[in-house]
């Protein structure tokens, strides 16, 4: 089955889960055992799918625990980065849609340059987060690279802070209302940022490696 078909099947599964107790259905689906057989390249689209759901159960954690419990921090951080990238893509879509719907001063707020430029920055952060996460989803889940995990988590955390701030600024008060969906993403982005090592923790680790290697800056980036 192609990657696209698997992600579609996985998305349908998540969207159809019984809200009160999703776990038996997930168990039956076989997806929870995926990390034992699949490469991280194959798991990346699924992490995006989880991130793009406003109310997904903690599927990636459950998958990781099937592989190793406790979950190695590098694997947990990598999966978190993928989920954050998916959530950020959803935040961008919501924000563009809102900016083209909400009208003030007689036009859609997305027609104002000040708003356009903020959303352009949001889009940049989303792209950076996605490719940074993707770069960590390489090889076997049990052998995930600590340095790639670090680079991914650092960049996704930065994007989460910058991107969420812009999304909320564009949405105004409705963005923090319980009824509106945005906070399901931005609160999860905050929670994931603080899970499995924050930006400074991973940066110290990555920086320690960079400074212990006798390589130039660009070669270090290539060696990640």
């Amino acid at each position, binding site marked *: 089955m192609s990657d696209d078909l698997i992600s579609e099947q996985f998305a349908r599964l998540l969207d159809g889960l019984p809200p009160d107790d999703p776990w038996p259905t997930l168990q039956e689906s076989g997806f929870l055992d995926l990390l034992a057989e699949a490469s991280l390249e194959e798991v990346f689209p699924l992490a995006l799918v989880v991130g793009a759901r406003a109310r997904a159960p903690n599927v990636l954690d459950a998958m990781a625990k099937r592989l190793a419990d406790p979950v190695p921090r590098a694997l947990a951080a990598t999966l978190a980065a993928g989920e954050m990238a998916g959530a950020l893509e959803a935040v961008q879509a919501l924000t563009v849609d809102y900016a083209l719907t909400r009208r003030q001063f007689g036009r859609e707020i997305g027609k104002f340059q000040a708003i356009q430029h903020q*959303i352009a920055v949001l889009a940049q952060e989303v792209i950076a987060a*996605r*490719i940074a996460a993707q770069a960590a989803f390489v090889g076997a889940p049990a052998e995930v690279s600590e340095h790639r995990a670090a680079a991914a988590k*650092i960049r996704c955390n930065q994007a989460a802070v910058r991107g969420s701030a812009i999304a909320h600024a564009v949405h105004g008060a409705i963005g923090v209302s319980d009824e509106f969906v945005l906070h399901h993403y931005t609160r999860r982005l905050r929670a994931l940022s603080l899970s499995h090592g924050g930006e400074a923790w991973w940066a110290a680790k990555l920086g320690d490696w960079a400074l212990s290697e006798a390589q*130039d800056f660009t070669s270090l980036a290539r060696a990640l």
Partner: protein
Amino acid sequence: MLETLNLAAIPPEDEALREPVRAFLAERLAAVSAARRARTWMGYDADFTKALAEKGWVGLTLPQDYGGQARSPFARFVLIEELLAAGAPVAAHWIAERQSAPLILRYGTEEQKRRIVPAVCRGEAFFCIGMSEPNSGSDLASVRSRADRVDGGWKLSGTKIWTTYGHKAHFMIALVRTSGAPEDRNNGLSQFLIDLKAPGVTARPIRDLAGDEHFSEVHFDDAILPEDALLGQEGAGWEQVNAELAFERSGPERIYSSTVLVDAWLDYLRGRGNLTDAERVLAGRLLAELSALRNMSLSVTAMLAAGKSPVVEASVVKDLGTGFEQSIPTLIADHLAGEADGVVPAELLATVEYLGGMCPTFSLRGGTREILRGIIARGLGLR
């Protein structure tokens, strides 16, 4: 539309270019200080360009029929990454190789292509960009320089300014008005391939805040240009100049301008020892950012290699990349400010001083942040 940027790997045959380039640069730049190398694409050295061209490394992606090597955009990525990371003085041929020759190949006559492009690839024809004027910067469609038809050619009047190495280049590709008035905006503009030795052309260097003379003011005082100075179609200047800007913005050169400084700082820390956590954190953050940007730039390179025109995606990389390049001098300077007097090597201080002063230009050259964000907003369907 804004396409998703996916990871792209450099093919082995293009990656193989890296080692010979590194060896060449290690030898050529051994005696050049970090502060001097920090000029990178503001560093002008015609001898260096000539030596690079002899290796076949000027016009790498251009067709072999015109003196190029017909290599892929990935080979060019490897070459440029190494040139900029090492701080090679590439200014002499930079513009000619990146945008002028590709533009001439797209719009020029066969005679123009034969006359100019092989000379660019030999490292003998240097170009400058004739876009900005005293009253036209980001609002490029407001240019006032004007060429009128005269017997056997064109008569050109006007001024271009902030022209990088206009006082040293052999040629300029200039956007000028050939019909109508400034109110006609992007209608009535044309591009000219101007030999800067023509009578009536004078170029005066302008000193920058670092004491260098990297840009200039170029005057056209009823300069007479031959008929074949017209590049492409009369009146199609706006479309052509946008194609030129797409060439200018699509390469990987918007990430590496402060790399020489990062390397000088990392080497200083490695030599000094007793690392603090704050230093480790900064090094780690910079590396994570570079890694993401490099992967984004490679993804854009893959789009170029697939024959696409990734204008919006390249704008994303340029805006983020220049922000990264610009953040580095301040971040590193702040760390160095905590060191005891007299401890930090003078060369490292001179490097941070040069880049600290000049880094505001990183997000100006090739289109300001505001222009790029407008392009991205259009790609998102907001405009």
